[in-house]
């Protein structure tokens, strides 16, 4: 039933007492997530919506044994929070924080190798398995349980696509936002691999952006997949070389325009949608066939 998280996943929230952290903790609880605890250094012993708050991840692990953690701490402290989660051997780390320095992320990714943790993000909306659990910030009402897997580099654009899928009757097995930054913990390929192995997923939507070559890197894997994949890439009208909000949305010097990515998908015979509506329509054809 979906990938990465399910209704039994015990979720920790790092930065639970902050503005964003507490808002989304409430949202996650409402969605049905088992939020087992939270961490805010110096606020150990208190509670947020009845959830125990700890000073450190280590204490949280000893007391409430979480399987996953969602990181909301500000960019200045994000790297340390992730290192703490890795050292505490939390299996799944979902980093929501936007604005984490790239050099911090490079160090973290090198540190992750050989560890027992998987990092999703940073600068991502997290993971939702409809009818199961949510570890992240996607709006609650848009999801519908089903068999479409979704993996995306975007945030709000992902919400719109999920919303349209649900309204079109196409439920999701799991939706994963891997984040829009140049350096991220988990790639398209790794998520596609999980969807390929997940019996509950029948088709996959991949949402890409300008910048980098993560989309092209996924092509070989998609070609070997047994399940249909439909891609959507935004940023066709973005002027080259301009920063587009995400550090990840810079057109890198060596390629990485949306048009190049779309062409690469099409040359490999992978379906490409040109709008959220188009994705839904094309998916309906596949799913009916």
């Amino acid at each position: 039933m979906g990938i990465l998280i399910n209704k039994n996943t015990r979720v920790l929230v790092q930065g639970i007492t902050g503005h964003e952290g507490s808002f989304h903790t409430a949202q996650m609880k409402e969605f049905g997530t088992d939020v087992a605890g939270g961490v805010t250094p110096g606020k150990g012993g208190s509670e947020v919506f009845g959830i125990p708050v700890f000073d450190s991840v280590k204490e949280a692990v000893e007391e409430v044994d979480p399987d996953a953690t969602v990181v909301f701490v500000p960019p200045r402290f994000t790297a340390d929070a992730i290192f703490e989660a890795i050292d505490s051997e939390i299996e799944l780390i979902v980093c929501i924080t936007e604005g984490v320095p790239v050099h911090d992320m490079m160090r973290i990714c090198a540190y992750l190798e050989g560890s027992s943790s998987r990092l999703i993000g940073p600068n991502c909306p997290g993971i939702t398995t409809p009818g199961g659990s949510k570890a992240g910030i996607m709006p609650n009402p848009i999801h519908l349980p089903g068999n479409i897997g979704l993996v995306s580099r975007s945030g709000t654009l992902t919400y719109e696509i999920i919303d349209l899928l649900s309204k079109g009757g196409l439920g999701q097995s799991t939706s994963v936002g891997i984040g829009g930054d140049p350096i991220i913990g988990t790639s398209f390929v790794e998520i596609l691999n999980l969807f390929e192995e997940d019996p509950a997923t029948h088709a996959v939507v991949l949402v890409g952006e300008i910048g980098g070559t993560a989309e092209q890197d996924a092509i070989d894997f998609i070609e070997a997949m047994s399940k249909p994949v439909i891609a959507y890439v935004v940023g066709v009208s973005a002027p080259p070389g301009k920063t587009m909000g995400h550090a990840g949305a810079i057109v890198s010097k060596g390629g990485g325009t949306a048009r190049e990515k779309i062409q690469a998908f099409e040359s490999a015979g992978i379906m490409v949608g040109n709008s959220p509506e188009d994705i839904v329509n094309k998916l309906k054809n596949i799913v009916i066939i």
Partner: protein
Amino acid sequence: MDLYEHDAKRIFSKYGIPVPAGDLVTDARQAGEIAAKLGHVAIKAQVLAGGRGKAGGILTAATPQEAVQKAERIMGMSIKGLTVKKLLVEEYKKPEKEMYIGITIDRKARSPVFIAATEGGVDIEEIAKSSPEKIFRTHINPLTGIHDYQVRSVAYLLGRADSASISNLVRKLYMIFTDHDCMLAEINPLVRTSGAFYALDAKMVIDDNSLFRQEFAQEEEDELSALAKQHGMSYVGLDGDIGCMVNGAGLAMATLDMIEQHGGRPANFMDVRAGADEEQIRTALQIVSANKNVKVIIINIFGGLTRCDEVARAIAGREIKIPLVIRLAGTHEEEGRKILSDHGISMAMSTQEVARRAVELGHTH
């Protein structure tokens, strides 16, 4: 953020990477004074754009008189839409040999990559395409930093006889790269002249996400982008007439793409970021509408932490007269819709629809 050549060179110099003697001028006549001291000089337009040389923004002068003339020719010039307001006037170094060294981030390898080539001065990407074997690459583990054997490899490639000086440059460039949270730190060309090495050009791009711990004066090319950044938002001016205000960069790009798909042209990119409140939205509206070309404004919000009711209140209380096309979804969507309908404003239901309606509205104006 990109650093100006002269700012990057100041940092290089501080770290002991030799750069030609020189100074920054804002008045062409000052170029003469510097040339009087330095002799043969190079006069270089200080703009954050590539291709300055081809655009005529880099000239040399043998005498103070010539320096003033050339400086006058460059000052005020427009290079890729940017007006030249500052010139770097520096000692002209005749290169015996031009090389390239640079460090950037390899997104796929998730680590810095050191790049070196025995040819420099021209576009490194051209060399990379035509003769990839001429480009040396070595990935650096971000936890250990550059290893001595890697430094040595670069030094042996660029000049065995000069390996001590080159090793020194390589180590310093890597220090600059890590100390300043660089996305790129580059010397192109690195020249050898009379037995010494100089960074003839210097390029540094700083990770915007690191600016909380790096001390760089924000020097934006345009006011609206600067204003947006001050408020934690991201704005990029474009040359169309449909203003855009969206939360999330991906959704913002999708909005631009769909405007073009419907035959319209966006006037800007704007990401108001997650958690924008009423005041933030009001500021964003002011920024977008400050562009005189804007005929219609799209507001496209899919709220998470951003609440639709706050957005709606900002819209309802707006002071601008440019027509709006609005789409609000997500957190407190119903409340937002109610506030707007109380004010007689209708809403589109998707990005597709908001783009289509804006283009239609733009045509009728």
